[in-house]
């Protein structure tokens, strides 16, 4: 019960902060809309079918917008030493990590839904025959991404390079996830059967699980002296 209470407190605090500042949602949402607008003009849809490139665009937007949002997690925590106060409290570090992952995931997934909406609007994107499977694939991908980015966000926030370091640390580790995720998304958007993407979804879920376990175990070594 104590663990859940502490976990819930971190999630609630992060979401209240975000609802009031809207810093990260505005940055990530703005980027997602901008990508939609730019590619709408950049692509000659008489030559290239939007449906064919949508998967890559969705995952690119997820990763770059996510980096912008998650990278700021610990910058917000630095305000007046607030994170130091949290670290002086008895909250287990894995609860702190999982709380931050959950709140980051909710924000990133909200942006994923926005991306789907924007692409539907600009490119008349069809979501295939299994839209819930598509949402599940993107959820697994977003969770894996957030699990890694939150851990490395804590690493980079403690360095002089700050947010600049985050993509350098995270992108190489995201490659397998993006390959499986973009492939599954592409097939689902093309209306292929679920059986063709089940393996990819399992890989994405395994990636997210490993990232979560590693992050929960390593977080204390990152944030403590």
């Amino acid at each position: 019960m104590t663990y859940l209470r502490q976990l819930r407190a971190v999630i609630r605090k992060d979401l209240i902060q975000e609802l009031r500042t809207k810093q990260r949602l505005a940055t990530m949402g703005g980027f997602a809309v901008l990508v939609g607008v730019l590619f709408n003009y950049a692509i000659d849809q008489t030559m290239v079918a939007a449906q064919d490139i949508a998967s890559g665009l969705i995952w690119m937007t997820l990763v770059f917008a996510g980096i912008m949002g998650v990278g700021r997690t610990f910058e917000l925590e630095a305000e007046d030493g607030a994170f130091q106060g949290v670290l002086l409290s008895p909250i287990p570090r894995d609860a702190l990590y999982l709380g931050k992952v959950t709140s980051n995931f909710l924000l990133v997934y909200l942006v994923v839904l926005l991306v789907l909406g924007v692409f539907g609007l600009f490119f008349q994107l069809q979501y295939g025959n299994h839209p819930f499977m598509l949402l599940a694939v993107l959820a697994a991908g977003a969770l894996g991404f957030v699990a890694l980015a939150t851990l490395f966000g804590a690493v980079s926030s403690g360095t002089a390079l700050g947010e600049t370091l985050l993509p350098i640390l995270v992108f190489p580790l995201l490659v397998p996830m993006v390959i499986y995720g973009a492939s599954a998304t592409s097939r689902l958007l093309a209306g292929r059967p679920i059986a063709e993407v089940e393996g990819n979804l399992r890989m994405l879920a395994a990636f997210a699980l490993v990232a979560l376990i590693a992050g929960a175990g390593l977080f204390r070594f990152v944030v403590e002296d």
Partner: protein
Amino acid sequence: MSAAAPELSVGAASASPLPESDAVAPPLTAVQLVRTFGVQRAVDGVSFTLQSGRFLSLFGPNGAGKSTLLRLLSGALRPTSGELRLGEEPLRTREPGWQHRIGVLSHQTFLYGHLTARENLRFFADLYDLDRVDERIDSGLAAVDLSGRGDDQVRTYSRGMRQRLALARTLLHDPDVVLLDEPFTGLDAHASAVLRGVLGALRDGRRTVVMVTHNLSEGLEMADIAAIQVRGRLAFWQEAAGLEGSSFLALYRETVEASA
């Protein structure tokens, strides 16, 4: 596991606003505490025993390692070598048991500006798994004279109001050991008076307090023990009862110059 509920008296700062409990903490002992940053020894072989219920004011010039010593006591930093003990037991400052027993007030408030005072206190109450949260929050806000502003976001507060709220956060979980790092920095007269009232009430005989300050008269007025740290070492440690402001100033200068 929920921490025991303290009894909080609601009212003016001077009317004993602090949690009351009969439990007395064992003495806090540092043994040859060393903390280095690269080649620099910020804390250099500090040893002391502070009996429970005593108020230690720690003075010293900038860069003497006072804040580092406080961070070692809080568990925010690990010592490079040496040991902390609470009674006879080696102190594991990273364990929840110790974190429940200490409260830290720094010149940084550890508060979230976009949360209200109540939301900040509720957040920390949840992290400490406290019971009777609303009662504690009401009492804490009353103790620091902020009852009327509890639902305002902290970013709208003045520096003094933030520091008072930070004090309420520090005492929310009824700590046995209170660590204060320059608590009066940047405060106006009213905020200083409220803070002084609450800190004065900390001298209840069961709570051990360590306060780092540059203000000699204020520190001396509250202290049971006055200490001076220079270049990472404790160069002076004495009962404060026999010390006077002007003579202590001369003693302070002499100690700092002799150790520099």
